[in-house]
């Protein structure tokens, strides 16, 4: 059930219940695109998209980012191959969900030990994803014709990973507003276990590479609005000692 957001409001105005404006439409309809056409975006378009990243807000105007554009099909293929190799190795050790009874006995405690240490990297979602990749059921970089590596300068102000997030979201929204597709890929982290990839991209202290963005023309077109969980919002808008007021975001009250 695809929600149509066709009527648009002008920018820089607000009335209650008015249709989305173009910026909001791009935000609401942006989906992570995981199917791309073979031909890459033109270089000028990539430059235009990167320009949105260059003008992102950052703490103390530190701009703690460095962009690397990877377009070479050979390098992309080699990245895919090595990422799958590393993921296969980890899943050989840790994937207890698809083994027989005996191996499960050995792997499950080991996996749970590592989940305690690497809670974010081995969250159920990436764990299942890596498990599927190890089985050859899906791909790491989705055959994207272009990758933008978001290299983070860890000497930035306050919290550099957050600046990377803000900058990347600018890039993603700009790409979608131009009709391209994009997807955040955090699994590029696994390549950082391999010294030759760190060397090729020049990832040494103080630089860190945690995330990249796949860019390309959408095939099939998959942008569209989707339902999301309604969130409970706490409003501290009364006296100093009063309890907060709760509302459900996304549900008409």
């Amino acid at each position, binding site marked *: 059930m695809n929600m149509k957001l066709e009527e648009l409001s002008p920018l820089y105005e607000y009335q209650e219940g008015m249709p989305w404006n173009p910026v909001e439409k791009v935000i609401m309809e942006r989906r*992570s695109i995981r199917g791309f056409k073979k031909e890459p975006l033109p270089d000028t378009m990539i430059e235009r998209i990167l320009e949105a990243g260059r003008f992102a807000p950052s703490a103390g105007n530190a701009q703690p980012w460095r962009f690397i554009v990877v377009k070479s099909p050979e390098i992309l293929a080699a990245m895919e191959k090595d990422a799958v190799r590393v993921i296969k190795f980890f899943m050989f050790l840790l994937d207890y969900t698809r083994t027989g009874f005996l191996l499960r006995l050995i792997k499950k405690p080991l996996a749970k030990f590592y*989940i305690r240490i690497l809670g974010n990297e081995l969250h159920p979602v990436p764990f299942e994803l890596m498990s599927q990749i190890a089985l050859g059921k899906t791909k790491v970089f989705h055959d994207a014709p272009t990758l933008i590596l978001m290299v983070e300068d860890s000497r930035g102000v306050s919290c550099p990973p957050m600046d990377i997030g803000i900058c990347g979201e600018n890039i993603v929204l700009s790409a979608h507003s131009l009709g391209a597709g994009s997807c955040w890929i955090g699994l590029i982290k696994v390549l950082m276990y391999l010294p030759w990839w760190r060397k090729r991209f020049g990832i040494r202290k103080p630089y860190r590479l945690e995330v990249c963005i796949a860019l390309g023309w959408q095939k099939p077109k*998959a942008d569209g*609005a*989707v339902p999301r969980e309604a969130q409970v919002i706490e409003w501290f808008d009364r006296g100093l000692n009063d309890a907060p007021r709760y509302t459900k975001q996304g549900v008409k009250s």
Partner: protein
Amino acid sequence: MRTSFSFFDRIRIPDYDSPKQMQAGELLFDQEKCRQCGICVQICPGGCLLTETTTKMDIISGKAKGGKYGVPHVAKTRKGATMCIACYDCGAACPHGAITIKQNFNPGYHYKRLTQTSDMKYPLRY
């Protein structure tokens, strides 16, 4: 609304393949509206949507060519958990509106989330 986690919830890591400990997304495929074009199978982030005859990799690599692929379903692990993260990319991409989502993704125990509710809502114009 609960505002904090119990000690047990903090400590215990759920079994990732157990449907009792991990609430996964639930999709409904409308048999009549579905034209079996395979777009949702190709778009699924984890390759978890399958049909009787094809998988995501078959479509990407061009092994499965054209024709009707069959009505998709969500792959399940041996213990019966699906791996749907309720992103609903499939539903956004479906040109025929054949997919509806019934349930959100909410892993248990250590990964339990507090402020998300189970209602799935489209963007609301306030």
